[in-house]
């Protein structure tokens, strides 16, 4: 298997991880899984930007800047997201969005 083909496969796999995270964020009705989807998507952007910077010759520094920026953003996004979830307090122990809908009624 050639190196170029392997690099393409790696980038496609990282794109797949990003898509899984994005769909989890949009489709799952439980709030924590939505946050987990965001976290997964950001992780894939970090890894993807690093590998893209390694593979291409042009402007790798900008991609590495993107990598570092998202790496710094990851724990902050997670902490803020968990803080919002916890402050809502209406999720109790079930972490279920359907319970939230009933409370609005």
């Amino acid at each position, binding site marked *: 298997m050639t190196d170029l083909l392997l*690099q393409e496969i790696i980038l496609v796999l990282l794109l797949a*991880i990003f898509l899984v995270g994005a769909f989890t964020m949009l489709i799952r009705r439980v709030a924590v899984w939505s946050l987990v989807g965001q976290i997964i998507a950001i992780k894939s952007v970090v890894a993807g930007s*690093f590998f893209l910077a390694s593979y291409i010759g042009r402007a790798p520094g900008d991609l590495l800047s993107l990598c570092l920026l998202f790496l*710094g953003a*990851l724990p902050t996004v*997670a902490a803020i997201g968990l*803080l919002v*979830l916890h402050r809502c307090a209406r999720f109790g122990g079930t972490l279920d969005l359907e319970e939230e809908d009933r409370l609005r009624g």
Partner: protein
Amino acid sequence: MSELFVGVLIFVSLISTLVAAATRETEKLLWGTILCSLGLGLSILISGGGYFGVLVISVFLLTDLLLYLYFRSLYVHPKKKLINKAADRMNRIFMLWMGLCGFIIAAISMHEFIENNPFSGDRLRPVALLHQRIWGEDWYILSLATMIIGLVAFGGFFLVRREKND
């Protein structure tokens, strides 16, 4: 050969991500995200990430630790009742503090203090590019702002959260 190994690691990360996204159990979610973090971080490390790969693994695992601490605060996982709320709070703060210290120490020691370190960034092209682009003087200001935002988020999580009453 290393590219193939990187591909395998990322494939394992993808499977773990699918498990974490599709499961209904918090334990499987936690293990899925941890394996995803380890897979992606190790792939960066093997691909010439140097100490940056160590930093990536640490930050990813720190984020997963945040998730675990959140589940603990809700008694979702593990499902044990608290004996002492203050002691449990201190335990959570301590775990988070150890995680932060661990990744800072690991990254700094890998980069500077160990001679002939195979993970030393300057000999590896991607991290050498990182040094050229990132570690300029203007990025010190940006990293300071990022750290302040991070501290506010972490501090806010522990200051304003309320204990779940049984």
